[in-house]
């Protein structure tokens, strides 16, 4: 009954004119940045965060969630029409989507991508609703050791799945943790690592770091070379897939939805990985795997469904445990905290309108996205044609305003530019930004949980291995780290991109 009354409450919240408007703005901006290569949901949510300070928290979260799942829809458009993924989660769609477009089936590829995303997004939201309450109830029994172990596991999975060296990814996670320690210590009230700078007393801001690492650095990278975009000039027609295409797509959509939702829940998993796994699975199950990469609709339907279902799945640990599953969720967690809300099991009890309002708004958002993506495809193609010389100063300008308006200080702009340079060099040297940012957000919670655990156990680390949930989480984290270092197992370490592509 709790769930049904929650749904009613959620729709009452999300169907208000204001929240519908915020939802629309969110999905519109999401689609736009999904279409535009060079800026993703992390940068955009960080950018718009200061603009939401004076807005009701429910409306702010509805808009920011809309940006996230909207970007998944928009990302497929560039993959199919230009062979440039607007979003990392749409990389795999390039393989068959672009080939379908070359064969004159761009409309069907865009159509199945939008419908698959809609179906997966909707099913994902339903699953989120039914899973959140039982999980939140379970999470009420969690103590500091469980939270610390789960956060360790999340970070370990993220670093394990990182491209290239796991050691480098772990180093980045540690740098993120160290950055999070800058500022006043929450327990003793002592300033730490501030170098006597007043601006650092409150710590380094999440927004300047996120915009630097994921916004400015991306712009710098794109400026290195003139991006050539070979957009199909042929008229896109027939957005409704035909009966045969539907028949071939229905099971990939179902499988993609299931894979996406459950991988989305896992810390460190998410939209990118689920889309790769869905593609790999469809290829494996196909009777003509050799045709994958030549324009198979299954290769579009599965991954596009998976990346949208993963978005709904990623909300599960955020709302029930207060642990972000990926970087975008980490920024959303930061946003919730700035609005004075603490995500976790108590959020569902104390602020049910936030959870239900956001979840039910996703239904409305998915309907809006279907309307935005199919009839307005011409508009998105025009957006793609905007020269980068015009686009990048605008992206930078929004980043500058976003960083400044956070605390009305130019210091944050300086921090953002420094992290823009750091992010650029990190990309050059194969260091990933995601572990750094996730660790930065989790840092204060991890430190508090570890210190409380040590106080509880009188200094014994055995506390993490004697309680069942923390023991399992810690065991998995240790196993993942060991599997990297043991050469025999290392050969079997999944390199998802290479294996599947």
């Amino acid at each position, binding site marked *: 009954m709790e769930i049904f009354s929650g749904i009613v409450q959620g729709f009452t919240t999300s169907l208000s004119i204001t929240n519908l408007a915020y939802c629309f703005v969110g999905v519109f901006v999401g689609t736009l940045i999904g279409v535009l290569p060079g800026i993703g949901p992390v940068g955009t949510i960080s950018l718009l965060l200061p*603009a939401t300070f004076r807005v009701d928290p429910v409306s702010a979260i509805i808009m920011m969630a809309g940006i996230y799942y909207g970007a998944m829809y928009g990302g497929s458009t560039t993959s199919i029409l230009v062979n440039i993924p607007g979003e990392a989660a749409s990389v795999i769609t390039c393989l068959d989507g672009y080939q379908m477009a070359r064969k004159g089936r761009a409309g069907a590829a865009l159509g199945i991508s939008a419908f698959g995303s809609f179906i997966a997004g909707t099913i994902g939201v339903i699953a989120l609703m039914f899973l959140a309450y039982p999980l939140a109830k379970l999470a009420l029994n969690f103590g500091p050791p469980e939270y610390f172990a789960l956060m360790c596991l999340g970070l370990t999975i993220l670093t394990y799945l990182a491209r290239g060296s796991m050691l480098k990814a772990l*180093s980045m996670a540690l740098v993120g943790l*160290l950055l999070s320690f800058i500022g006043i210590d929450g327990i003793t009230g002592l300033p*730490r690592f501030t170098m006597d700078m007043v601006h650092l007393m409150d710590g380094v801001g999440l927004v300047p770091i996120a915009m630097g690492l994921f916004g400015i650095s991306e712009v710098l990278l794109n400026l*290195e070379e003139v991006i050539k975009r070979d957009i199909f000039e042929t008229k896109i027609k027939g957005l409704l897939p035909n009966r045969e295409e539907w028949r071939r797509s229905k099971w990939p959509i179902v499988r993609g939805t299931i894979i996406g939702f459950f991988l989305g829940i896992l810390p460190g998993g998410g939209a990118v990985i689920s889309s790769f796994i869905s593609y790999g699975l469809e290829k494996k199950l196909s009777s003509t795997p050799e045709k994958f990469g030549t324009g198979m609709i299954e290769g579009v339907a599965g991954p596009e469904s998976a990346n949208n279902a993963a978005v709904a799945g990623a909300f599960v640990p955020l709302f029930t445990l207060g642990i972000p599953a990926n970087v975008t969720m980490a920024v959303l967690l930061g946003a919730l905290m700035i609005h004075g809300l603490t995500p976790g099991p108590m959020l569902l009890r104390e602020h049910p309108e936030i959870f239900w309002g956001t979840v039910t708004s996703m239904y409305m958002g998915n309907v809006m996205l279907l309307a935005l993506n199919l009839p307005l495809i011409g508009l998105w193609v025009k957006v793609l044609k905007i020269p980068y010389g015009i686009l990048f*100063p605008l992206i930078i300008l929004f980043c*500058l*305003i976003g960083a400044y308006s956070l605390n009305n200080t*130019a210091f944050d702009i300086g921090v953002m530019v420094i992290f823009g340079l750091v992010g650029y060099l990190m990309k050059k040297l*194969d260091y990933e930004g995601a572990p750094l940012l996730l660790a930065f957000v989790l840092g204060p919670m991890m430190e508090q949980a570890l210190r409380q655990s040590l106080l509880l156990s009188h200094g014994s680390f055995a506390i993490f291995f004697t309680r069942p949930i923390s023991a399992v989480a810690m065991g998995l984290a240790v196993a993942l780290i060991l599997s990297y270092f043991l050469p025999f197992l290392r050969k079997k370490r999944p390199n998802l991109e290479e294996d599947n592509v």
Partner: protein
Amino acid sequence: MKIGEILSSLLLILVGTLFCRSSLHIGIGSINAPGPGLIPFGTGALLILFSVGTIVEVLITKRAEAQGSGPLFMGRRWGVIFSVLISLFAYALVLNFLGFLLATFLVLSLLFKIPGQRTWKGAVGVAALTTACTYALFGYALQCSLPPGILEFLGL
């Protein structure tokens, strides 16, 4: 890229060392009663350990070189990137003095000009228009507090 990887690891070792040193200074307490420096000390020490590990990994393995986004120093438009970074740092420095309108107009003129596809006249024109639109949106519509700087007398 091996040199770059080793240099970046050495830099991380330095960062870890500095954090460890500061942690000792603010007090690490004991494992039974952790002080404010204990966990940063452990994190810094782990960073040093993993960075040493990265150097060893780079030196002893024959794995493919960093797949990154291309070589660090060769064939890239370093001039463009350097100019953009300098412009942005300068913007942060002069924003409060010059004010939002003037500083934004100047930095946008540079940014529109830097890629080399536009004349100065065109870049300045687009920059002026963009600055005005942005000020109308953020300054008036969204009521963001933007620094007036030396143009304060205009009442903007």
